[in-house]
């Protein structure tokens, strides 16, 4: 199984390997969430969704369904 942002634990980091481009908002790419970039999971909201991440110097909250579209390798 692929590891995605949704598999990270709070405080863990990873490098984005692949993004299912057709399933994520373009906005996310535009914020700098791109392959090769480090991503850190800062927090998960109560009820396990959304995910609060740091990527490319931006602090973003994305929904779990989006987080599952971003494949990473853990650091």
């Amino acid at each position, binding site marked *: 199984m692929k590891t995605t942002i949704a598999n990270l634990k709070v405080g863990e980091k990873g490098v984005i390997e692949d993004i299912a481009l057709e399933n994520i908002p*373009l906005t996310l*790419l535009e*914020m700098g969430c791109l392959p090769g970039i480090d991503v850190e999971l800062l927090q998960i909201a*109560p009820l396990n969704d*959304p995910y609060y991440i740091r990527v490319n110097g931006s*602090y973003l*909250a994305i929904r779990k369904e989006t987080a599952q579209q971003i494949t990473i390798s853990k650091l």
Partner: protein
Amino acid sequence: MGIKKSIKVALVGNPNTGKTSLFNQLTGLNQKVGNYPGITVEKKTGVLKLNEQITAEIVDLPGTYSINPTTLDEDIVLKTLVNENHEDFPDVIVVVADVENIKRNLLIFSQIKDLNIPTILVLNMSDQMRKKGITIDIEALKTELKTEIILISARKGLGIDKVKKAILNYKDLSVSSLANIKDKIDTAFFKELKESFPGNPLYKSWLLITQAENLQFISGKERKLVNSFRKDIEKINRYQHKETILRYKTINEILKKTYKLDRTQGTDLRSKLDKILTHKIWGYVIFALILFVIFQSVFDWASVPMDFIDESFASLSSWTKTVMPPGMFTDLLSEGIIPGIGGIVIFIPQIAILFLFVAILEETGYMSRVVFLMDKIMRRYGMSGKSVVPLISGTACAIPAIMAARNISGWKERLITILVTPFTTCSARLPVYAIIIALIIPQQRVLGIFSLQGLTLLSLYTLGFVSALVAGYVLHKVLKVKSRSLFVIEMPDYKLPSIKNTAITVLEKTKAFVFGAGKIILAISIILWFLASNGSSDFNNAEEIVKKETKNSDLSREEFNQQLATYKLENSYIGMMGKAIEPVIKPLGYDWKIGIALVSSFAAREVFVGTLATIYSVGDDDENNTTIKQRMAAEINPKTGGKLFNFPVGMSLLVFYAFAMQCMSTLAIVKKETNSWKWPLFQLISMGILAYIAAFATYSYLS
């Protein structure tokens, strides 16, 4: 003397970069807030005098991460910048970026630059550079980005003069492109595109293709040409994603040479505050406390100015009556226009206070944390975490609340938010609730501390919120609207709110209410006045008829006047309307007088109280001795001989007002925001049916 000249300037940038602070610094209070035609997105423009001959007309475009829009606000940026015929099409663009997030901020800069319009890059929060460990080689960056770069601190007012100077000299700026999308994505495709739209910058043609659905100005031959490029939408989407990746590649290469960040510190405050504010228990506790403080203040602080406004307009009305010669015009002024304006002004304190809080919460960065906390919960009800702001704002007035929903990016979530917001208890319902509760709920305490009347009011507020959520849930299940989740929010740094920005936001929102709802409330007040002061032939001959009828009874002058006024009201157009709907509202326990009040409530719900006051006060010269409440309490139901406003009728009215969509201004704003009559009509009818059934059930059960 030279000819006066005006330069059009557009401010563009990511949200939270201080773009609006710069706008405020440049224009001061010399600004104007209007709406873009057809939609309710606020349009902020201001004038800056550059020298004796030249002024700059500055438009503060909505904050956006990209020229590719995801919300209505962001749509404006695209529409303004790709259409030379747009009234705000700029001579020069000022891109505001924040030094700390320069990489992300440069994305929109690179897009703008490719439109080949003169562009100035302003780096804000430059005073924070040393603290954050940032060093930038400005001269090298200028060369790489082919533009003028100015370091400023909008909050401290540093560097503003340099921005003014650069605007003045905009003709010296380079207009060459930055990213080369042509060669790196699909050479053949972009070559064909370039040749198909000669004279256009290539990137502009590309935007025409990718954003064709958002750009209505494309027409005829051009539209056909655009569509011929859009045959393979999958490919277009893929190229758009590739384009973004390419842009970042370019930006990264440039920044590698010019930008250094020594990240040893910086995120301390953020992580500490986040730990508490988004904690699974404390997060909600703190949010609930904040809400409590907000509501407490809205009602406590606002009551003093509201009472003052109420009294002032009442005395202005009667003063007008005494000083002006009696007649049609005086009546129109004292009974139509003045109370009409009063009905608008009275809401200003509550709306201003509520938006003061909302603005502070947004400025500090806390609101994004609320969105984060609430998103999952709200999704169950078909909404988004961003729906929290409209729902809270709805307790003041549904109009600015529905306007606040435009930040929600998914169409379905936005639509549901718009549809259910009118269920929240707005301040116009409050006077209605207050007077009915005072009539039917005894002044006693429960468990020794809680006032029964207060608890009733609290349960009506709860009813409002719960109905909004339930309605959202139902709509979520029923509505078949195709819409993809586009939920991405930025979690900004925490910061102290700027007084100037907060004040300007509050002023704008209040203005939006006054001029948005105000016009309709005033117009309807005047119509209602007309309907109440004109009527059938019986109305016109009222004096003779009443004289004839009362010939044999020995009436004092006062009693006669009262009879006359009652007779006039019954035979006025509005009385006829009340009587006409009486059979329909009878099952709810209402008579035709309440019917009149219901009809008038369409101006704004609080008119209910005013109308009843009119109905029960007409001809009553002894106004000081009896309040509306006392007069209503004394009203007898002619059939039963008991009180008209008894417990079942009162409860039925409360329930009716909780559910019914009785506000024309809200309907108008929903029409504007959803761009169709379908949704406001849906609201009017479904909420009306719900209110009727609920009120009927309440009345039948209780009586």
